[in-house]
C-alpha cells in the first residue's frame, strides 16, 4: 500500500504550506529520511524529509499551496501498481482559511478520490504541534506538559489505561532537572545530520549553526540565499545529529570536517554563526583551497569572554518559563522573542538527551564561562575572502572580539542588534551575504 505524504504542520499557527520544490523527481526512488521537498509557510521555509522509502508518485505541483494534513504525494514500494493520477489536490483559496472552506463536492480533493486505494494514514506525528495528539492524558497533565515544554509522547503514563497524570509530568520534569544537572546522557555515534535545499545553482553555501541551536535557525536568512544550493550541517548533540560525547574542540572540528569532506564539494561558501562560525574558521584552516568565501556571524574563538550563565541557562531549561529569559539575552529587541517563539524553541529542546549532550558540550567548550579554544591565529593565516557580521548589542560574546581580525577581513557591525543578526537583521545580513556569495 502506498504511503501518503501529507503537508506537515511545522509551526503552530500554520494552516497551509506552499510546496517550493521537490528534491526528487516523480518516478524516482527516495530513502526514508532523505530530503523530499521544501515548503514555505508565511513564517519560514523548511525542508521536509521522506516519511518512508519508496518511489515518488502523484506529487503536487511546485508552487501549489496545500492545507496541512492533506496529501501532496504518495510513495510506492518497488513493483507496486501505481494508481491513477488524482484530478486535483486540496488547495487553499488565497482569501480563505482552509477550515472555513468545506470541501465542495464539485471540487474533488486529492484525498477524496478512490485512487490510490486506501492511502495509508501514516503521519509525521513527531512534527511540532502534533505532539501529544492521541495520547491519553488528564487536562492537568496536558497543562503541565505545555508549560514545561514537554511533549506528552515522551512520557509514560501511570494512570488507568496508561493515562498520563500530572504526577507523571512532574516526575519527568524532576528527572530532567537531575539529568541536566549531572549532564549524564547516553552518548551515540554516527554521522552528523545534513539537510539540503537544492533549488539554487552555482557554488553551494555550507551553513553551520551555533551552540544550542539547529539547522532551522537559518530559516529567516534563507530567502536571501536561495539562489545557491544550501547545505546545513547540524552539530553533534543538536537537531537530528547523533548525541556524541564531545571531548574537546578538536574532536568537534574533526566531526565537522569529516562531514564536510563527505559532501565532496569542489568549491563552497562557508557560513557559520557563533560556535558554528568558529568551526568555519577551523575548517578553513585545513580546507582552504575548496572555499570560495568565509562568512562569520558573531563568531566564537576570537577572545576568551562568553556569557557562560546564559549558555548554562539555555542548556538547563526544561520549560518555556525558564528558557524564555535566557533566549531574550540573544537579542537586543526582546520583543522579537515572543512566548510562541519560546514555546517552539522549548519543543525543539524537548529531548532530555539533547539537552544533556549540549550541557556536557558546553562544559568542555566553555568551562567556567570561558572560550576554551582560540582561533585568532588561524584567522590570521586564512586568505579566503572573509567577512564578519556582528551586532553591537551582543550579550553573549562581546562584539569587540571582531577587532582581533586582520585588516583584510571585512567587518559589518550593526547597532542595536544582539547575538543573532541573522534573526534580528535578517534582511540586511541577507543583502550583504547575497552580494558576496
Amino acid at each position: 500500500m502506498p504511503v501518503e505524504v501529507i503537508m506537515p504542520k511545522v509551526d503552530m499557527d500554520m494552516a497551509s504550506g506552499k510546496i517550493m520544490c521537490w528534491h526528487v523527481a516523480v518516478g524516482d526512488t527516495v530513502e526514508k529520511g532523505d530530503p523530499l521537498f521544501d515548503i514555505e509557510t508565511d513564517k519560514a521555509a523548511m525542508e521536509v524529509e521522506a516519511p518512508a522509502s519508496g518511489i515518488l508518485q502523484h506529487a503536487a505541483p511546485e508552487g501549489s499551496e496545500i492545507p496541512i494534513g492533506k496529501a501532496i504525494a504518495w510513495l510506492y514500494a518497488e513493483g507496486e501498481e501505481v494508481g491513477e493520477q488524482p484530478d486535483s489536490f486540496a488547495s487553499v483559496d488565497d482569501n480563505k482559511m482552509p477550515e472555513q472552506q468545506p470541501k465542495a463536492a464539485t471540487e474533488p480533493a486529492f484525498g477524496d478520490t478512490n485512487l490510490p486505494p486506501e492511502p495509508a494514514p501514516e503521519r509525521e506525528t513527531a512534527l511540532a504541534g502534533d505532539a501529544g495528539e492521541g495520547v491519553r492524558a488528564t487536562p492537568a497533565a496536558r497543562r503541565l506538559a505545555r508549560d514545561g515544554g514537554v511533549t506528552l509522547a515522551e512520557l509514560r503514563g501511570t494512570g488507568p489505561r496508561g493515562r498520563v497524570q500530572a504526577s507523571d509530568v512532574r516526575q519527568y520534569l524532576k528527572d530532567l532537572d537531575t539529568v541536566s544537572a549531572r549532564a549524564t546522557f547516553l552518548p551515540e555515534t554516527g554521522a552528523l545530520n545534513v539537510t539540503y535545499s537544492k533549488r539554487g545553482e552555482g557554488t553551494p553555501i555550507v551553513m553551520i549553526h551555533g551552540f544550542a541551536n539547529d539547522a532551522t535557525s537559518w530559516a529567516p536568512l534563507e530567502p536571501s540565499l536561495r539562489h545557491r544550493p544550501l547545505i546545513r550541517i547540524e552539530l553533534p548533540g543538536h537537531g537530528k545529529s547523533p548525541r556524541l560525547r564531545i571531548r574537546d574542540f578538536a574532536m568537534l572540528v574533526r566531526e565537522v570536517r569529516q562531514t564536510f569532506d563527505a559532501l565532496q564539494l569542489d568549491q563552497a561558501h562557508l557560513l557559520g554563526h557563533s560556535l558554528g562560525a568558529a568551526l568555519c574558521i577551523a575548517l578553513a584552516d585545513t580546507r582552504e583551497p575548496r572555499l570560495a568565501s568565509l562568512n562569520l556571524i558573531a563568531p566564537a574563538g576570537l577572545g576568551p569572554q562568553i556569557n557562560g550563565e546564559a549558555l548554562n541557562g539555555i542548556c538547563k531549561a526544561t520549560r518555556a518559563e525558564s528558557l524564555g529569559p535566557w533566549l531574550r539575552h540573544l537579542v537586543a529587541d526582546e520583543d522579537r522573542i515572543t512566548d510562541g517563539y519560546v514555546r517552539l524553541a522549548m519543543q525543539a529542546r524537548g529531548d532530555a538527551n539533547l539537552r544533556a549532550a549540549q550541557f556536557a558540550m558546553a562544559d568542555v567548550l566553555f568551562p567556567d564561562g570561558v572560550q576554551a579554544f582560540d582561533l585568532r591565529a588561524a584567522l590570521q593565516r586564512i586568505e579566503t575572502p572573509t567577512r564578519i557580521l556582528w551586532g553591537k548589542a551582543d550579550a553573549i560574546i562581546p562584539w569587540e572580539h571582531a577587532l582581533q581580525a586582520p585588516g583584510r577581513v571585512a567587518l559589518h557591525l550593526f547597532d542595536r542588534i544582539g547575538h543573532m543578526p541573522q534573526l534580528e537583521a535578517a534582511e540586511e545580513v541577507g543583502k550583504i551575504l547575497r552580494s558576496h556569495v
Partner: protein
Amino acid sequence: MNAQNKPELRELSYAEAIREAMDIALEDDPSVLLMGEDIGVYGGAFQVTGDLVDKYGTDRVLDTPISELGGAGVAVGAALTGLKPIFEFQFSDFAALAMEQIVNQAAKVRFMLGGSVSVPLVMRFPAGSGTGAAAQHSQSIEAWLGHVPGLKVVQPSTPEDAKGLLLAAVADPDPVMIFEHKILYKMKGHVPEGYYTTPIGKAAVRRAGKDVTIVATSIMVHKAMETAEKLSADGIDAEVIDLRTVRPMDRDTVLDSVRKTGRLVCVYEGVKTLGVGAEISAMVAESDAFDFLDAPIVRLGGAECPIPYNPELEKAVVPQVPDISAAVRDVVQGRV
C-alpha cells in the same frame, strides 16, 4: 475573645433553629406570616413551627386547607400584595401539586411585569429519604426548582445555616425555596443568638484539603465529612464544600477548590441523572479549572428509581459513607 473565657456555645436542633428564625422574622416584621397545612395547633408535620401559633395567633400562623395548589396560590397572592409569607409544605414531594404557582407564577411575575412587582415568598420543603416514608414522601427535588430562573434554591446542612438562610430568604425580595432535610431536623449544632443571615449563593468550605474536592449538598455534607475524616487516616486529604445554594450556584468557591486539588467528586441525594452534580460537573468542565483536572469528575447521586419502602433498600439507593469513600479513593489513587 480568647479561648479561656469563651462562653459555652449555645446549641439548638436544626428544627429549633428554623423555629427561632421564624420567631425572629415574625417578631421583627409585621408583614411576615406563616402558612401551611397543620402548622398551627398541631405544630407542623415535623413539629417545626411548634407553638408559634400561641405567640402570634392564627392571623399570622395560618393553617391552610389540604390543597397545596390553593395554599401556594394564596401565598403568592399575599406576597404580591406586600406580605412576606413563609409557606411550609408537609413534604417536598407535594411541590408537584403546587408547581403552577411556584414555577409559572412566583418565578415569573417580576419578569413579566417588567420588575414593577416582586414576590417576597419563602417556601420550606421537608425533603429527603431515611424516614421510611417511601416513594411519594422521600424525594430530593431541588434540581427541579433549581432549573427555574426567578427562583432561589437553598439547602442548609447545619442548624446555624438553617436559621441564617431562612432569615436571608425572608429578607430577599424574590421567591426563595428552602429544602430542609428531614433527617437533619434533630441534629444539634451551634446557633448564634439573635438576627443574622447566611448569604444565599455562597458555598462553605467545611474542611480544607489538597487531594480532592468533594462538593456535597444537604445531608451529604455530613456523610462527606465523615468520609474525609476516615480517609485522612490513610493520607488522603479531602476538601469538603457544602454547596448550600443550588441556585445561584457559587462558582468561585468550587472552581478555586478544583484548581487546587485537581479532582472533583459530587455527592447529592437527588437522582444522579440531570441532578445538581451534573451542573457542578459541567460548570467545572466549562471553566479554566478544567485544565487543572487530573482525574475524571465523579458524581454520586440517588439511584435511578423511586425511593423504596424497605429500609435496607432505602439506604442502598442513596450514597452512603462507604460509597463515597470508595469513589474518593478511586479518584485520588488514579483508578478511574
